[in-house]
């Protein structure tokens, strides 16, 4: 009898401890809960730590410099490695590291070595270049496997061209990219979110410019 009481008390205790552990875990997850297919907040680690904060924010490079297809077609596109080389054939490491090397060379009175940052090495690898930026026959050029952040289902056809030419800013859908170290999905990108914007701009226009944003299903679904 006593044993049984003890045993049930033990079980209760065990379950309570378990509950004490799981409830906070579940509660913390509850904030991030969203409906199936909604990837808001998705921020995968990219194969190459290229910073939008640095390029688009500090250096003020236009979005279309790297994603130029956005004004010509459906996809914005990812920059080819050759495009990166327009700058990175001379910029091979962050400024701080280059300055430090300059200092060190001056102190030691030795010739300045070219420093190649580990992240940019990945870029040069993709082009099949060695550390002196010469073609290395042992390396095979290969694309950098970027991870897509903004994914739409296959049955939705979004066209960048129409939005760029209507004057919609990139940040409107992609969030404050110029402040992000790695790209994160800020908006919901759900159909309701799209349609609400289309309804709004038909009333108010884009930056005051009147536009005709289609509300037909077949504007996106075909």
């Amino acid at each position, binding site marked *: 009898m006593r044993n049984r009481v003890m045993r049930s008390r033990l079980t209760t205790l065990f379950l309570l401890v378990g509950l004490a552990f799981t409830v906070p875990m579940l509660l913390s997850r509850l904030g991030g809960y969203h409906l199936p297919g909604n990837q808001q907040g998705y921020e995968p680690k990219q194969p190459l730590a290229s910073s939008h904060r640095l390029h688009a924010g500090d250096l003020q490079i236009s979005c279309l410099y790297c994603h130029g297809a956005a004004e010509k*077609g459906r996809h914005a596109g990812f920059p080819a490695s*050759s495009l990166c080389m327009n700058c990175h054939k001379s910029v091979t490491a962050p400024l701080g590291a280059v300055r430090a090397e300059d200092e060190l060379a001056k102190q030691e009175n030795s010739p300045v070595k070219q420093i190649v940052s580990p992240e940019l090495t990945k870029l040069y690898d993709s082009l099949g270049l060695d550390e002196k930026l010469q073609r290395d026959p042992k390396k095979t050029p290969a*694309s950098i496997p970027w991870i897509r952040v903004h994914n739409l289902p296959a*049955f939705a056809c979004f066209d960048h061209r129409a939005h760029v*030419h209507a004057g919609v800013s990139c940040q409107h859908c992609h969030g404050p990219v110029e402040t992000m170290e790695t790209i994160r999905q800020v908006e919901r990108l759900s159909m309701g979110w799209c349609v609400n914007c289309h309804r709004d701009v038909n009333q108010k226009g884009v930056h005051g410019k009147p536009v005709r944003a289609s*509300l037909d299903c077949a504007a996106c*679904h075909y």
Partner: protein
Amino acid sequence: MSEETANSYWKSLEECTADSEFLETASREFTEPIAVDPHGPSRRDFLALTGFALAGLTVAGCTPAPERQALPFVTQPEEIVPGRSLHYASTCQECSAGCGMLVKCRDGRPIKLEGNPEHAMSRGGLCAVGQASVLGLYDRLRVQRPLKDGRESTWREVDDDIRTQLDEIRRHGGAVRVLSGTILSPTLRDQIRRFLSRFADARHVVHDPLSASAILTAHERTHGIRLLPHYRLERAEVVVGFDADFLGTWISPVEFARAYQEGRSLDGNPPRCSWHAQFEGRLSVTGAKADERLRVLPGEMGILSHLASRLARRAGVSWDAPGLEDASIPGSVLDRVADRLWQARGRGLVLCGSQDVDQQLVCNFVNHLLGNYGATIDLEKPSLQKQGNDAEVERLVQELKDGRVAALLVLDSNPVYTLPGVQELTAALQRVPLLIDCSERFDETAAVAKYVCPRPHALASWNDAEPIRGLFSLAQPTFAPLGHERTILESLATWSGGGRSARQLIQEFWQANIFPQQTRENQFQRFWDQAVHDGVIETSIHEELPRSFAMDQIRPVIRSERPAEASFALALYPKVGLLDGRHAYNPWLQELPDPITKVAWDNYVCLSPTAANRLGIREGDVVRVEVGGASVELPAYLQPGQHDQLLAIPLGYGSKLSERFGNIGPNWLEARLTLNENGQVGINAAPLLILAGNSLQYQRLSARLTRTGRSHPLASTQTHQSISVPAHLAPAGEARRPMIQETTVAGLARGHRPEHPEPQADLWPNDHPVTGHRWGMVIDLNACNGCSACVVGCQVENNVPVVGKDEVRRQREMHWLRIDRYYSEEGRTSGDVDVAFQPMLCQHCGNAPCETVCPVLATVHSSEGLNQQVYNRCVGTRYCANNCPYKVRRFNWFAYSRDDALQNLVLNPDVTVRSRGVMEKCSFCIQRIQEAKLESRRLGLPLADGAVQTACQQSCPARAIHFGDLNDPNTEVSRLVRDGRRYQVLAELNAQPAVNYLKLVRNRPEGEVRGHG
């Protein structure tokens, strides 16, 4: 209803005879019974399972999506913008017509082939076969490496072997033969000449499986030069065809269809319309368009001599035809045809498809009498589209049987399959010491060859072509070969000792031979770049001809061989989709219903319903056809309009290439195989051909037909999606609605305007005016000849799946666009029929009946008048399909196989691949509308008329389909809608379709118009 309207068209014999089974099926809401198992799970179980599944799916759906990679280019090619298509000019090489085409490439891969509007011959048309050929590029079962004795080898080993053996043969003076089909490439012809010039005993034999050798031989005799004339149908006011299916499969159907249409454009007043009489035994696509169709047996072509003697009399030429037997056609009819021809001297054309040289000689004589040479028949710039010489083929077969050939190179030809006498030929070929087969796939000939030297797909190699003398076109690669193939040009160059690339060889040939013949450019590089860009150039090259006509060669064909009363004559013919069978690997073409019989995935024996009734044969009964020792067993097909003593069997089936279709179609419990007992699709009828008397004969004069007692259900789509209403359901007198409306040239000239149906009381308030664009289509039934290029074009553009034979039998074919073929017997002599083709697709109704019944609003109207189908909303109730009066909606019964990652490269990335349980239908190529709209917006230009071309419209050889904005009064479609010939199908339902049809026009006296009232 208009006075001119015929209302007596029917689609199938079952419908014509009001077969009770057919009526029962047509009246049912769903064609198949819906399986409800009384012992299955109860409603409670169902709800429990649904609840569990929903909860489970919600939990599963909350996990992050799988990582999707995006791989950019390493080095950005200048011209490629992701998501945008590029078009390259090229040349179709799928048959010997050599039409011009544009290759639509997306992200570096070809996804769609379209006609090149700037090509002087094909003028923007491309047939079903040409359009389907893009699938062959992504075919896993191509031969990708050279084979030696059936095992994979390397080019080095194969080349060394071949060169050593060829040197040996050269030393001993052995016989070297090259066997090929018609070669349009002047560079390749030159290369073959060079290759053969190194041997003492060498010959190039050209074997066309669909031969026109007799025409060339006849011209050799009458004009002293072996050539195939270039027929100019657009100049002809009277066309008389003798067994020549020039709109379907004969010589250059795309070109002829356009030219024929031009001659019947109905422009001006009186309307321009040629008069066309067709003498034939089976019902061909061409016969279906004829104003006067006369049924004659293959052996009765003495009719041509009757015509000749009548014309000779009118011309005052003495031409004796003693002993000419009486024709089976009344003399008055022949007089009428002769009168028409005589009145249109120099503006008429007599075409003969016979393989009998004597017939062709008489045909030449008739054209000569009428002064058609130099007018509608061009000999100066002849056609090079058939160069076959059957006498040479016959000689080669004899040489092979005698073992006199030391080396045989088979270039892109499959004689084991296309020639009669398979066993003897195979045995003879096995005795050839050096047998090299250069082909794309492992076909019947490759199986006996010692060396197989694969060539790349036409879209992955350089090539050139000269279909008409002086008209040169180029084919450029748009894709790298997937394996280790090598072009025939390069292979021959390697074996001749000079290893250069195909591009170099072609460039050198063009620089030496074609560049000097033109005056447009004076620098070769610029000339070449322009030629590559345009895909085609015209030069002044032509033949010098003797002006004489050798009268003494003409002998009247007096014999009239008719089979005995109980037996039959036999005609073997190519089908529009499969031609000579080299495309049997292509599932799109296998599933394409034949324009006339509407059967897919099989061949059969066509016989007239009268003959079938007499013998007690029902459709699908397997019969044995025996002729001269050879026999085949095939299911019977009842073909209205066919001569009662004729059997007709399609060629191109029963090929080794079709053995791949074992797994095609959905895999489920009740699935039945697409393949026959022989492991192939259909049965090869080539053993019934005869290669004798210097020509390959497609017609046999005496065949025996016996029943086997077995039956084989055909996958025929003619009773599917029937628009007609069974009598017991229809309001009085409306059981057969006038789907097809027609008129005559005389009626048009009189300015007889049909009444449009009165606007009826409308249930719907007009509260959704379409103010911007309103997309609409006009289909000219007078132009449409049923060629089905649009059906395949739509299939490629819109990712329409292939379902396999069994599913077609179950009425589950997925084609968004079908061509309804109707027959009518009214006003015809017994057994003869009139035929009408009607492309039927979603009509994008203003008051769409489908939209009102969808419970989830998955099909709704757009602001531009389109009837949209939203796949992600659709839950698959199929209510819409049942409520659609036009029966144009298709349901995805399965997730049709998309397992082949290589083949998926052909999918159009602009169109969603639909999943199981979703309804789909024609979208008016909304992806093309969107692309054109967005592009015009990007460029800040208004959307021009013609900027949006639907896939079906773009490549229509006859220009039958027009698409555009109905709200703009200046567009082509708006102009055509105002045409007096315009009508809408089922207008009385007041669905207000956006698709309009233009009436069929027959060039007949008005008194002969049928179906009054």
